[in-house]
């Protein structure tokens, strides 16, 4: 039972994360000047649902804080507090504290200090929430059940052609994924909604609520919902007892009742819907507006809104109690009375149906499909082309590939998730450095593997920080150079083949190559007489040892944690490209794999056993001539390559494989790989079998990360080949054990 509760908690925290993301996106939009009603409502809804869940799970501190936050949001939403930049700033702070509270509830962090922010929130409530009766010709809805809120204060912008009610007809069909199959799912709420007559506002709402049979067993308490509706001045008009069995058949765990409740028309439909936030799956909830023969007197000065607008903008919420994340519930949010004028009729788009699936299950599916593909190729190997045609194997193969692609796409998420925290970060950086910076974002809908999104957060942070700190010049310098005082950072994402390119471009001063080179020489990263191209010098800023903390202040070029960017991106099987034009700016490009599940690799043999060498590491392949590989010590060897000496490793020794220690290099191949810790290194292998994409299987799923291995893959014949983790293999063994383990886990 407690396990079950834990599971539900886990879902709650997942929803919290989604809610926080939605709130942050909304707040950022508000901060950027978008104070439209849907935006404000999205923030409110997110905080509200966090509060609700927190209450249900007894997280008192989280509940208390989100309640205060929600109060302010509600006032803003109702138009009683103007969303001024000052208010927005406090709400952004409140958001940070809210995130900390969620972390605390999860046991991930200590109890945050929220006193200052709470005070600020209270101050906003105190000054903005004061009722102003003079400006309130009509009652404004107080669409929440939170008891501490002052109802009935004026919307500052009320008047004009505003519809003070802002009501649209609404029909809610709560027919979620019905686990018991009792309810028909194929019900289109739009049919009902569009059939409703358009009018200015209903005189009452008729709410029909029939909890699912299993509501009580699921731990929900229908009576609480009825009580909540009563708080909204709802009156129970009828109780449906049809389903009630004779007493001897009565199951106390079973829910038999249905209610019809009439709620006055001035209550916002959203407040009614809010009451059903925690309704059990499979319950029937219908909210139907009731209209008077003609519109009730409302004090509207301007002519009534054309009916067309009403028809086009009915808020139809097909709420999936278990499934739809809050942001999707929010999509068809009704237009609120805060607006100066009714929002242009929006075509209500059908709410996207979605279900929550554990990542593990997707990965299992991916595994099985991968296996299917492999079996298919085994079959193809064994059948002659003619026989393949006869059994329609090509068609089958195409189908399985398509299934594989589809399953992969299930793991893909829009990169917006990684981008969403940039505006806020930039705001903070802007305040820190005193530089005015404009952010242009494109391609945020580009989809990329969820695992990649999770891991590019840090690199992205470093790149943005770097662009602000070292790219964009101060306003005075910019003006002197004939550029606008405001700097611009362009953040973009695009898919190119099987790769995703994420770019951070600034219009700053570019890399000062002379100084970077001088610094690199000073740091001993390169020799003083080294001849380097511009590109090579640019790459230096990603060199480890170059960008240590104490050099930041000394270098006017770049170098904040750029080696972190490079190592993180390379750990994902990607790479970083830098291009810079002096005076014009610098562009960093992360070239990322579309998915973590697939790796482009070279199949090589070591002592007869097959291994996969990630192609991202490979620089070139050399067939050494006699004498080209020279011993330096008893075990060490180097290869002479265009006048340079590159160390050569025999992985067979590292792995303790076979006895080819004495094999002559000219009978082998040397693959030159590039590593972060050891530069270029040559690896001695027997042969190269193939070059292909392989599906990465983790070793630690059933075992343990193993040093030097990034995972395993299953080859076309069903056998397993191990994937080499070059960095861990050639890097210094003692210095990077932790990093290595992290990489092993990542694979």
């Amino acid at each position, binding site marked *: 039972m407690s396990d079950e509760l834990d599971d539900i908690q886990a879902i709650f925290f997942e929803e919290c994360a989604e809610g926080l993301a939605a709130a942050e996106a909304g707040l950022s939009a508000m901060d950027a000047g978008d104070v439209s009603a849907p935006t404000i409502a999205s923030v409110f809804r997110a905080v509200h649902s966090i509060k609700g869940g927190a209450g249900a799970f007894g997280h008192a501190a989280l509940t208390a804080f989100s309640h205060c936050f929600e109060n302010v949001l509600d006032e803003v939403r109702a138009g009683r507090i103007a969303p001024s930049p000052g208010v927005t700033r406090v709400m952004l702070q409140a958001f940070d504290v809210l995130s900390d509270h969620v972390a605390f509830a999860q046991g991930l962090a200590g109890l945050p200090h929220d006193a200052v922010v709470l005070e600020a929130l209270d101050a906003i409530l105190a000054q903005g929430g004061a009722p102003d009766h003079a400006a309130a010709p009509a009652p404004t809805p107080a669409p929440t059940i939170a008891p501490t809120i002052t109802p009935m204060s004026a919307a500052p912008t009320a008047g004009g052609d505003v519809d003070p009610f802002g009501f649209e007809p609404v029909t809610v069909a709560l027919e979620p994924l019905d686990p018991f199959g009792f309810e028909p799912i194929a019900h289109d709420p739009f049919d009902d909604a569009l059939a409703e007559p358009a009018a200015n506002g209903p005189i009452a709402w008729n709410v029909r609520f029939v909890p699912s049979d299993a509501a009580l067993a699921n731990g929900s308490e229908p009576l609480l919902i009825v009580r909540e509706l009563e708080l909204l001045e709802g009156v129970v008009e009828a109780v449906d007892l049809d389903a009630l069995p004779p007493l001897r058949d009565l199951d106390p765990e079973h829910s038999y009742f249905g209610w019809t409740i009439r709620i006055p028309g001035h209550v916002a439909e959203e407040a009614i819907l809010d009451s059903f936030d925690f309704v059990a799956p499979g319950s029937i909830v219908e909210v139907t507006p009731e209209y008077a023969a003609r519109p009730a007197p409302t004090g509207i000065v301007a002519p009534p809104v054309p009916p067309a607008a009403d028809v086009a903008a009915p808020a139809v919420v097909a709420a999936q109690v278990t499934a739809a994340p809050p942001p999707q519930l929010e999509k068809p949010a009704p237009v609120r009375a805060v607006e100066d004028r009714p929002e242009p009729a929006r075509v209500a788009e059908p709410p996207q149906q979605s279900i929550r699936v554990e990542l593990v299950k997707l990965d299992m599916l991916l595994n099985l499909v991968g296996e299917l593909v492999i079996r298919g190729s085994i079959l193809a190997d064994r059948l002659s082309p003619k026989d393949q045609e006869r059994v329609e194997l090509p068609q089958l193969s195409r189908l399985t590939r398509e299934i594989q692609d589809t399953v992969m796409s299930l793991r893909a998420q829009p990169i917006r998730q990684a981008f969403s925290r940039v505006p806020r970060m930039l705001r903070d950086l802007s305040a820190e450095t005193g530089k005015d910076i404009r952010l242009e974002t494109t391609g945020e809908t580009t989809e990329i593997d969820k695992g990649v999104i999770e891991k590019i957060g840090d690199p992205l942070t470093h790149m943005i920080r770097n662009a602000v700190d070292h790219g964009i010049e101060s306003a005075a310098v910019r003006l002197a150079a004939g550029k606008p005082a405001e700097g611009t950072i362009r953040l973009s994402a695009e898919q190119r083949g099987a790769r995703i390119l994420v770019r951070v471009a600034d219009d700053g001063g570019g890399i000062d190559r002379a100084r970077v080179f001088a610094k690199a020489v000073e740091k001993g990263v390169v020799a003083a007489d080294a001849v380097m191209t511009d590109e090579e010098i640019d790459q230096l800023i990603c060199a480890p040892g170059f960008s240590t903390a104490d050099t930041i202040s000394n270098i006017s070029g770049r170098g904040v944690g750029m080696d972190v960017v490079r190592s993180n991106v390379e750990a994902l099987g990607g790479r970083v490209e830098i291009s810079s034009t002096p005076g014009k700016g610098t562009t960093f490009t992360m070239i990322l794999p579309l998915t973590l599940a697939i790796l482009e690799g070279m199949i090589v043999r070591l002592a007869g056993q097959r291994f996969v060498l990630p192609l991202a590491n490979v620089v070139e392949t050399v067939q050494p001539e006699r004498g080209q590989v020279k011993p330096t010590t008893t075990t060490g060897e180097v290869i002479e390559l265009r006048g340079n000496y590159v160390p050569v490793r025999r992985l067979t020794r590292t792995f303790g*494989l076979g006895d080819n220690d004495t094999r002559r290099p000219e009978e082998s191949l040397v693959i030159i790989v590039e590593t972060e810790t050891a530069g270029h290194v040559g690896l001695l292998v027997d042969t190269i079998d193939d070059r292909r994409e392989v599906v990465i*299987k983790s070793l630690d799923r*059933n*075992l*343990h990360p193993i*040093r030097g291995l990034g995972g395993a893959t*299953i080859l076309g014949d069903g056998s*397993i080949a191990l994937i080499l983790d070059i960095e861990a293999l050639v890097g210094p063994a003692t210095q990077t054990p932790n990093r290595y383990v992290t990489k092993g886990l990542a694979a």
Partner: protein
Amino acid sequence: MSTIDTPGERKIVTFSLGEQTFGIDMASLIEIREWDEPTPLPGVPSFIKGVTNLRGTVVPVVGLAERLGWSPSVIHARSCILVVNIAGKQAGFLVDEVADIVLIKDSDIRPAPDVEIGEPSVIAGLVKTQTRTADGTNGSDSLMVLLLDLDALSLTRQLDIAA
């Protein structure tokens, strides 16, 4: 595969390893497969023979004999791999021969005396079962089965110790 558990009773799979007969809980067993040379792994204790492909999942194969501190099993025609689920992780154990599936009563399990096998904790208990004749009827001899505690055999734990 699912077995309906009667309280107080359970099904075990018995197998031989060297001179001994061992048993593991049927509920932990995923499948029994023929011996197939696994892909060796570098840098792991010698009792891990390598990894094999179980329907798209990479599963380690453990020489149970070595794991218990004995000399390695000699592979022969009846050698097989018991694929089991230990705390959500899958592992294959190389055993000499699978013997039988028997129903035992929990009350028949005797606590393990200090058995001289690796760590004593890997033996969850002892149980006596009847040998069965070819026609399925119970024979007269009773057979002592050592019940393995799979959790104690957990690979990751062992590797943590080794590391």
